Protein backbone atom coordinates (compact mmCIF):
# COMPACT_ATOMS: atom_id res chain seq x y z
CA UNK A 1 0.00 0.00 0.00
CA UNK A 2 1.43 3.36 -1.02
CA UNK A 3 1.81 6.38 1.20
CA UNK A 4 -1.10 8.27 -0.40
CA UNK A 5 -3.40 5.26 0.03
CA UNK A 6 -2.38 4.95 3.70
CA UNK A 7 -3.02 8.63 4.20
CA UNK A 8 -6.41 8.50 2.49
CA UNK A 9 -7.44 5.52 4.56
CA UNK A 10 -6.26 6.67 7.97
CA UNK A 11 -6.26 10.48 7.95
CA UNK A 12 -9.64 10.81 9.68
CA UNK A 13 -8.72 8.20 12.27
CA UNK A 14 -5.50 10.06 13.11
CA UNK A 15 -7.18 13.47 13.12
CA UNK A 16 -10.12 12.34 15.27
CA UNK A 17 -7.85 10.71 17.86
CA UNK A 18 -5.58 13.74 18.02
CA UNK A 19 -8.60 16.05 18.26
CA UNK A 20 -9.99 14.09 21.19
CA UNK A 21 -6.72 14.40 23.08
CA UNK A 22 -5.69 17.99 22.33
CA UNK A 23 -9.23 19.39 21.93
CA UNK A 24 -8.20 21.99 19.40
CA UNK A 25 -8.77 21.67 15.64
CA UNK A 26 -5.65 23.56 14.52
CA UNK A 27 -3.39 21.59 16.85
CA UNK A 28 -5.02 18.32 15.79
CA UNK A 29 -4.37 19.22 12.16
CA UNK A 30 -0.71 19.96 12.96
CA UNK A 31 -0.38 16.63 14.77
CA UNK A 32 -1.99 14.79 11.84
CA UNK A 33 0.63 16.26 9.52
CA UNK A 34 3.42 15.37 11.93
CA UNK A 35 2.16 11.79 12.19
CA UNK A 36 2.16 11.27 8.42
CA UNK A 37 5.55 12.93 8.03
CA UNK A 38 6.89 10.47 10.60
CA UNK A 39 5.14 7.60 8.83
CA UNK A 40 6.74 8.65 5.54
CA UNK A 41 10.20 8.93 7.08
CA UNK A 42 10.12 5.83 9.24
CA UNK A 43 7.92 3.35 7.43
CA UNK A 44 10.95 1.05 7.42
CA UNK A 45 10.76 0.68 11.19
CA UNK A 46 7.17 -0.57 11.05
CA UNK A 47 6.97 -4.18 12.17
CA UNK A 48 4.32 -6.05 10.26
CA UNK A 49 3.49 -8.22 13.29
CA UNK A 50 1.17 -5.45 14.50
CA UNK A 51 -1.55 -3.77 12.48
CA UNK A 52 -0.75 -0.55 10.62
CA UNK A 53 -3.66 1.16 12.38
CA UNK A 54 -2.22 0.15 15.78
CA UNK A 55 1.13 1.68 14.84
CA UNK A 56 -0.59 4.86 13.64
CA UNK A 57 -2.64 5.09 16.85
CA UNK A 58 0.54 4.78 18.93
CA UNK A 59 2.32 7.55 16.99
CA UNK A 60 -0.74 9.81 17.18
CA UNK A 61 -1.27 9.30 20.91
CA UNK A 62 2.40 9.88 21.65
CA UNK A 63 2.50 13.11 19.63
CA UNK A 64 -0.78 14.42 21.01
CA UNK A 65 0.24 13.78 24.63
CA UNK A 66 3.63 15.44 23.98
CA UNK A 67 1.77 18.41 22.56
CA UNK A 68 -0.37 18.67 25.69
CA UNK A 69 2.72 18.49 27.92
CA UNK A 70 4.39 21.32 25.96
CA UNK A 71 1.22 23.39 26.18
CA UNK A 72 1.00 22.85 29.94
CA UNK A 73 4.67 23.80 30.37
CA UNK A 74 4.03 27.03 28.46
CA UNK A 75 1.06 27.79 30.70
CA UNK A 76 3.15 27.21 33.82
CA UNK A 77 5.89 29.43 32.39
CA UNK A 78 3.35 32.17 31.68
CA UNK A 79 2.00 31.89 35.21
CA UNK A 80 5.50 32.23 36.70
CA UNK A 81 6.21 35.26 34.52
CA UNK A 82 3.00 36.88 35.64
CA UNK A 83 3.89 36.16 39.30
CA UNK A 84 7.21 37.97 38.88
CA UNK A 85 5.56 40.81 37.02
CA UNK A 86 7.51 40.28 33.78
CA UNK A 87 4.53 39.81 31.61
CA UNK A 88 0.93 40.70 31.37
CA UNK A 89 -1.19 38.38 33.39
CA UNK A 90 -2.54 35.67 31.14
CA UNK A 91 -5.76 34.50 32.59
CA UNK A 92 -6.16 30.80 31.99
CA UNK A 93 -9.64 29.97 31.02
CA UNK A 94 -10.15 26.61 29.36
CA UNK A 95 -11.50 27.19 25.88
CA UNK A 96 -14.83 25.54 25.30
CA UNK A 97 -14.32 22.68 22.89
CA UNK A 98 -17.03 21.52 20.54
CA UNK A 99 -16.29 18.27 18.76
CA UNK A 100 -17.55 18.59 15.17
CA UNK A 101 -19.02 15.09 15.24
CA UNK A 102 -21.43 15.80 18.10
CA UNK A 103 -25.09 16.32 17.26
CA UNK A 104 -26.22 19.92 17.56
CA UNK A 105 -28.65 19.36 20.44
CA UNK A 106 -25.95 17.54 22.44
CA UNK A 107 -23.20 20.16 22.04
CA UNK A 108 -23.54 21.76 25.45
CA UNK A 109 -23.48 18.50 27.42
CA UNK A 110 -20.68 17.12 25.23
CA UNK A 111 -18.63 20.26 25.79
CA UNK A 112 -18.95 19.78 29.55
CA UNK A 113 -17.94 16.15 29.20
CA UNK A 114 -14.84 17.09 27.16
CA UNK A 115 -13.87 19.69 29.76
CA UNK A 116 -14.04 16.98 32.45
CA UNK A 117 -12.19 14.55 30.18
CA UNK A 118 -9.38 17.06 29.86
CA UNK A 119 -8.73 16.81 33.61
CA UNK A 120 -8.23 13.04 33.61
CA UNK A 121 -4.80 11.38 33.80
CA UNK A 122 -3.37 10.66 30.34
CA UNK A 123 -3.92 6.90 30.30
CA UNK A 124 -7.54 7.11 31.40
CA UNK A 125 -8.15 9.87 28.89
CA UNK A 126 -6.61 7.89 26.01
CA UNK A 127 -8.52 4.72 26.87
CA UNK A 128 -11.80 6.64 27.05
CA UNK A 129 -11.19 8.46 23.75
CA UNK A 130 -10.23 5.29 21.90
CA UNK A 131 -13.35 3.57 23.15
CA UNK A 132 -15.92 6.34 22.84
CA UNK A 133 -14.63 8.47 19.97
CA UNK A 134 -12.96 5.79 17.88
CA UNK A 135 -15.23 2.89 18.79
CA UNK A 136 -12.33 0.56 19.60
CA UNK A 137 -13.01 -2.54 21.68
CA UNK A 138 -11.21 -3.07 24.98
CA UNK A 139 -9.10 -5.76 23.33
CA UNK A 140 -7.98 -3.39 20.56
CA UNK A 141 -7.26 -0.67 23.11
CA UNK A 142 -5.15 -3.17 25.06
CA UNK A 143 -3.12 -3.81 21.90
CA UNK A 144 -2.69 -0.13 21.12
CA UNK A 145 -1.73 0.81 24.68
CA UNK A 146 0.37 -2.31 25.12
CA UNK A 147 -1.56 -3.35 28.23
CA UNK A 148 -3.53 -6.35 29.34
CA UNK A 149 -7.26 -6.51 28.80
CA UNK A 150 -7.77 -6.41 32.53
CA UNK A 151 -5.68 -3.24 32.83
CA UNK A 152 -7.71 -1.52 30.10
CA UNK A 153 -10.99 -2.47 31.76
CA UNK A 154 -9.69 -1.06 35.03
CA UNK A 155 -8.59 2.13 33.26
CA UNK A 156 -12.01 2.54 31.68
CA UNK A 157 -13.72 1.99 35.03
CA UNK A 158 -11.54 4.62 36.69
CA UNK A 159 -12.02 7.03 33.79
CA UNK A 160 -15.81 6.81 34.05
CA UNK A 161 -15.77 7.14 37.84
CA UNK A 162 -13.47 10.18 37.70
CA UNK A 163 -15.54 11.78 34.96
CA UNK A 164 -18.66 11.28 37.02
CA UNK A 165 -17.06 12.93 40.06
CA UNK A 166 -15.86 15.90 38.05
CA UNK A 167 -19.17 16.35 36.28
CA UNK A 168 -21.05 16.13 39.59
CA UNK A 169 -18.79 18.82 41.04
CA UNK A 170 -19.32 20.98 37.98
CA UNK A 171 -23.11 20.66 37.98
CA UNK A 172 -23.31 21.03 41.73
CA UNK A 173 -21.50 24.38 41.47
CA UNK A 174 -23.24 25.60 38.33
CA UNK A 175 -26.75 24.54 39.23
CA UNK A 176 -26.46 26.24 42.61
CA UNK A 177 -25.20 29.42 40.89
CA UNK A 178 -28.30 29.58 38.71
Amino acid at each position, binding site marked *: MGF*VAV*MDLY*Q*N*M*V*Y*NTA*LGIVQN*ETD*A*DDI*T*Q*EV*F*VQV*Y*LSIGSFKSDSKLSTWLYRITISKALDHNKKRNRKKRGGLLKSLFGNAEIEKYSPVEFN*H*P*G*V*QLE*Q*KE*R*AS*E*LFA*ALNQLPDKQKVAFILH*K*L*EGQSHQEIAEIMNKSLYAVEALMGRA*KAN*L*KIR*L*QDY*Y*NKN*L*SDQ
Partner: protein
Amino acid sequence: MDKKESINQFVEAAFNSIEHIERAAAKPFLLSRINGRLLSERGNRWWETASLFIGKPSFAIPGIAILLFVNLTTIAFYTSEPSSAVSEQSVQVSSDEFYYSIASIYDNENPEP
Protein backbone atom coordinates in the same frame (compact mmCIF):
# COMPACT_ATOMS: atom_id res chain seq x y z
CA MET B 1 -37.16 16.78 41.86
CA ASP B 2 -34.33 17.24 44.34
CA LYS B 3 -30.98 18.69 43.42
CA LYS B 4 -29.03 15.44 43.63
CA GLU B 5 -31.36 13.75 41.21
CA SER B 6 -31.13 16.69 38.85
CA ILE B 7 -27.33 16.58 38.94
CA ASN B 8 -27.35 12.86 38.18
CA GLN B 9 -29.58 13.48 35.21
CA PHE B 10 -27.16 16.09 33.86
CA VAL B 11 -24.24 13.69 34.36
CA GLU B 12 -26.13 10.96 32.54
CA ALA B 13 -26.97 13.36 29.73
CA ALA B 14 -23.29 14.37 29.46
CA PHE B 15 -22.25 10.72 29.10
CA ASN B 16 -24.99 10.07 26.55
CA SER B 17 -24.09 13.14 24.51
CA ILE B 18 -21.21 11.34 22.79
CA GLU B 19 -22.99 8.03 22.24
CA HIS B 20 -23.65 8.72 18.56
CA ILE B 21 -20.65 10.91 17.93
CA GLU B 22 -19.34 10.92 14.35
CA ARG B 23 -15.68 10.76 13.48
CA ALA B 24 -14.24 14.21 12.78
CA ALA B 25 -12.83 14.55 9.27
CA ALA B 26 -9.36 15.88 8.60
CA LYS B 27 -9.14 19.24 6.85
CA PRO B 28 -8.88 19.18 3.04
CA PHE B 29 -5.58 19.27 1.10
CA LEU B 30 -3.77 17.33 3.80
CA LEU B 31 -1.44 15.75 1.24
CA SER B 32 -0.27 19.17 -0.02
CA ARG B 33 0.43 20.32 3.52
CA ILE B 34 2.31 17.12 4.29
CA ASN B 35 4.36 17.59 1.10
CA GLY B 36 5.24 21.12 2.19
CA ARG B 37 6.25 19.89 5.62
CA LEU B 38 8.34 17.09 4.15
CA LEU B 39 10.19 19.60 1.94
CA SER B 40 10.94 21.84 4.91
CA GLU B 41 12.01 18.79 6.95
CA ARG B 42 14.44 17.85 4.18
CA GLY B 43 15.84 21.40 4.22
CA ASN B 44 16.27 21.25 7.97
CA ARG B 45 17.86 17.82 7.68
CA TRP B 46 20.51 19.13 5.27
CA TRP B 47 21.46 21.80 7.78
CA GLU B 48 21.33 19.34 10.64
CA THR B 49 23.60 16.92 8.77
CA ALA B 50 26.02 19.71 7.88
CA SER B 51 26.15 21.05 11.43
CA LEU B 52 26.61 17.56 12.85
CA PHE B 53 29.49 16.93 10.44
CA ILE B 54 31.13 20.27 11.23
CA GLY B 55 30.66 19.67 14.94
CA LYS B 56 32.48 16.31 14.90
CA PRO B 57 35.81 16.51 16.79
CA SER B 58 37.58 14.73 13.92
CA PHE B 59 36.56 17.60 11.66
CA ALA B 60 36.37 20.51 14.10
CA ILE B 61 39.83 20.19 15.76
CA PRO B 62 41.90 19.99 12.54
CA GLY B 63 39.68 22.72 11.08
CA ILE B 64 40.40 25.08 13.97
CA ALA B 65 44.12 24.17 13.83
CA ILE B 66 44.28 25.05 10.12
CA LEU B 67 42.48 28.35 10.73
CA LEU B 68 44.88 29.26 13.54
CA PHE B 69 47.90 28.32 11.41
CA VAL B 70 46.71 30.46 8.48
CA ASN B 71 46.00 33.40 10.80
CA LEU B 72 49.34 33.17 12.60
CA THR B 73 51.26 32.81 9.33
CA THR B 74 49.51 35.88 7.92
CA ILE B 75 50.24 37.94 11.05
CA ALA B 76 53.87 36.79 11.06
CA PHE B 77 54.28 37.68 7.38
CA TYR B 78 52.94 41.21 7.73
CA THR B 79 54.63 42.08 11.01
CA SER B 80 58.15 40.97 9.95
CA GLU B 81 60.54 44.01 9.32
CA PRO B 82 61.80 44.47 5.74
CA SER B 83 65.63 45.09 5.29
CA SER B 84 66.72 48.79 5.44
CA ALA B 85 68.55 48.80 2.07
CA VAL B 86 65.54 47.66 0.18
CA SER B 87 63.42 50.14 2.06
CA GLU B 88 65.59 53.19 1.22
CA GLN B 89 65.93 52.19 -2.39
CA SER B 90 62.24 51.80 -2.81
CA VAL B 91 61.63 55.22 -1.24
CA GLN B 92 64.13 56.83 -3.60
CA VAL B 93 62.55 55.22 -6.64
CA SER B 94 59.15 56.36 -5.54
CA SER B 95 60.24 59.96 -4.98
CA ASP B 96 61.97 60.11 -8.38
CA GLU B 97 58.95 58.76 -10.13
CA PHE B 98 56.59 61.18 -8.52
CA TYR B 99 58.87 64.28 -8.58
CA TYR B 100 56.69 67.20 -9.50
CA SER B 101 58.41 69.98 -11.36
CA ILE B 102 56.92 72.23 -14.01
CA ALA B 103 59.07 74.72 -15.86
CA SER B 104 57.12 77.98 -15.97
CA ILE B 105 57.63 80.83 -18.44
CA TYR B 106 59.27 82.91 -15.73
CA ASP B 107 61.98 80.34 -15.41
CA ASN B 108 62.84 80.63 -19.14
CA GLU B 109 62.22 84.27 -20.16
CA ASN B 110 63.32 86.28 -17.16
CA PRO B 111 66.79 85.18 -16.42
CA GLU B 112 68.40 87.03 -13.60
CA PRO B 113 70.95 89.57 -14.58
